[in-house]
């Protein structure tokens, strides 16, 4: 420490091993990809609402007549899912928030393996580049849905190979990151910070990392197998006797397309909880701070998410009810699906009951956290008819499913992440954002999101399948077509709101630093004990100790008792 020499620009901002710099790198990268995924969605939505009309402003850049072609539509659909999940939300929730906050919240100077952390980011970066590059390949990017079901994906153009290679990079990056997070959370806690004094967000990141660690490798294996199929002509997922457009495929056959679905959903169901758990953690932090009281039933919530994580490994086949499943297997997976709803309800109840007896400050992050609760509730409730095979017969692969999971990840997780950005913005930058703009952003986002996703339930209820390029050729889809128009206009509102967000977070950087910004929300967890921004490679000027639980608001003579203060 004594040798206080300055680092060069590259070491300090590009190839940095400092968890805060890496966290911000992840955050900016993820933000870029979230906006890109959002842009793809805007173009698809235009085609869905106004089929065969050319896209305004940018359509001519894509195709001759400015109309989105079915090939491009399928590419955008597949890449929207992939980008949002693997390049947007996971890097934001785990990469950015996990990296930046976890060491601070456990009082450590950095992650347990700083170099591995840097490697994790750069592997993610390469994975992102490969995904972007795939758009330039002949035939375009992957176009078999983010689920990439074979045999369709096996016979797809070259973009699918790039998709698989990109996925292998992203998976490797996640594995490195999750090892780092687990070791940091277990080993680097400061003295006195026992497991049940950890902030809820640390718990959420810990469970999330175990999910990433143990659920991602099967998809990596599946990705390698599909690469073998595509590059070396093997038949892992190709049954015998396939005939594509009148031509028999020259493969040996003998494979099984359902194998991919099992391996894929073995990851992709836990992945849902990878998306939602950090969001729950962020919401718990914001809610506890802004209600000025401890979380109601902290221990219960911790046990609930551990159970949730465990159960998430044995529900995967509920995505496959329509693949010809018999009664025994579907009975098992319906039962586990119903069971997994219980811990989710418990966590939601914990957050709701924390409001009782509170003194609620309606700060900008709190607005997002509060909006998360009903949105997550809608997402969870609508999972019920999909989890029961009988109603799933009708609703499977309709817009209802899209509405369901988007309510969990978009108005749910994404709004929690936006709230998190506002909540920790003063700590990261030393400046306060513009609160009026923040509130405008909130209402625009809230209304826009609901305007997009609520109509999906009705379209799904009318029986319309997902991923249709032009549903209006179906008589039964025409009655709900006006809803699609509403959704498309809502998506513009949402886009406009995000412009406010970007202006807010970047323009606020130009403000002078506020001296009193070390703990603007009067919060108790350890990250607020650090200087603003936390010292490079060190975080805290003095080693800390923790003396109490994470959310001691109004429990002692003080209005709030930070974890690191000995006297209360």
């Amino acid at each position, binding site marked *: 420490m004594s040798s206080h020499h300055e680092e060069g620009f590259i070491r300090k901002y590009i190839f940095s091993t400092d968890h805060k710099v890496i966290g911000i790198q992840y955050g900016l990268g993820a933000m870029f990809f979230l906006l890109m995924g959002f842009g793809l969605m805007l173009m698809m939505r235009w085609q869905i609402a106004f089929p065969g009309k050319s896209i305004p402003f940018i359509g001519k850049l894509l195709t001759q007549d400015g109309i989105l072609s079915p090939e491009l539509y399928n590419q955008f659909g597949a890449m929207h899912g992939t980008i949002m999940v693997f390049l947007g939300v996971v890097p934001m929730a785990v990469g950015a928030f996990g990296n930046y906050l976890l060491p601070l919240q456990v009082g450590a100077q950095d992650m347990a393996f700083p170099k591995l952390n840097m490697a994790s980011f750069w592997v993610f970066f390469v994975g992102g580049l490969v995904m972007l590059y795939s758009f330039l390949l002949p035939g375009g990017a992957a176009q078999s849905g983010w689920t990439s079901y074979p045999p369709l994906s096996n016979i797809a153009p070259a973009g699918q190979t790039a998709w698989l290679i990109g996925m292998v990079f992203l998976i490797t990056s996640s594995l490195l990151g999750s090892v780092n997070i687990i070791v940091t959370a277990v080993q680097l806690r400061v003295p006195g910070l026992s497991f049940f004094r950890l902030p809820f967000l640390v718990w959420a990141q810990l469970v999330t990392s175990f999910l990433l660690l143990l659920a991602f490798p099967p998809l990596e294996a599946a990705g390698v197998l599909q690469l073998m199929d595509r590059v070396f002509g093997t038949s892992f997922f190709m049954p015998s006797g396939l005939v594509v457009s009148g031509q028999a495929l020259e493969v040996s056959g003998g494979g099984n397309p*359902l194998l991919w679905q099992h391996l894929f959903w*073995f990851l992709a169901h836990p992945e849902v909880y990878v998306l939602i758990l950090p969001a729950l953690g962020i919401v718990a932090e914001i809610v506890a701070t802004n209600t000025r009281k401890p979380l109601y039933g902290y221990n219960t919530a911790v046990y609930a998410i551990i159970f949730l994580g465990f159960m998430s*490994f044995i529900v995967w086949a509920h995505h496959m009810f329509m693949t*010809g*499943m018999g009664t025994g*297997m579907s009975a098992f997976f319906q039962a586990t699906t119903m069971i997994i709803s219980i811990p989710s309800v418990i966590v939601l109840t914990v957050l709701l009951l924390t409001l009782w007896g509170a003194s609620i400050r309606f700060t900008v992050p709190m607005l997002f956290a509060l909006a998360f609760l009903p949105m997550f509730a809608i997402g969870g409730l609508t999972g019920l008819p999909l989890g029961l095979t009988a109603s799933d017969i009708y609703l499977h692969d309709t817009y209802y499913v899209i509405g369901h999971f988007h309510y969990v990840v978009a108005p749910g997780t994404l709004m929690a992440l936006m709230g998190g950005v506002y909540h920790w913005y003063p700590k990261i930058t030393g400046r306060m954002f513009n609160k009026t703009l923040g509130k405008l952003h909130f209402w625009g986002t809230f209304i826009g999101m609901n305007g997009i996703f609520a109509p999906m339930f009705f379209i799904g209820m009318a029986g319309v399948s997902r991923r249709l390029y032009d549903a209006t050729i179906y008589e039964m889809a025409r009655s709900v077509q006006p809803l699609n128009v509403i959704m498309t206009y809502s998506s513009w509102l949402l886009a406009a709101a995000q412009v406010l967000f970007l202006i807010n977070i970047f323009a606020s950087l130009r403000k002078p630093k506020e001296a009193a910004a070390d703990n603007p929300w009067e919060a108790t967890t350890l990250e607020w004990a650090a200087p603003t921004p936390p010292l490079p490679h060190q975080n805290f000027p003095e080693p800390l100790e923790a003396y109490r639980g994470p959310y001691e608001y109004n429990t002692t003579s003080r209005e709030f008792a930070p974890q690191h203060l000995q006297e209360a």
Partner: protein
Amino acid sequence: MEAHSAEEMQRHVKTYFAVYIALLVLTVATVGVSYLHTTTAMHILAAMVVALVKGSLVAAIFMHLSNEKKIIVYSLVLTVTFFIAIMVIPVLVECEIFRYLDRMVS
């Protein structure tokens, strides 16, 4: 890692060589069994039992799992649980789906 006394290490080294001999013997045994005339099921059973014994020896002695800290053992118990879950996939694929298999190409 704990400090090890010289005698203790000598004892360990003896164990390592003993395990090595056992692994070699078991390898010969598993190859030998594969040439016996018996049912495929018996072959699979024998090969898997031998592999499990060999694997356990490597894990327990070479990887010191027999005397490892709780946190690592717990992490591995969790992993084994999910490992079992993933080994259930063939059961799901075969029992449920292929029940309907009625090949069009006959």
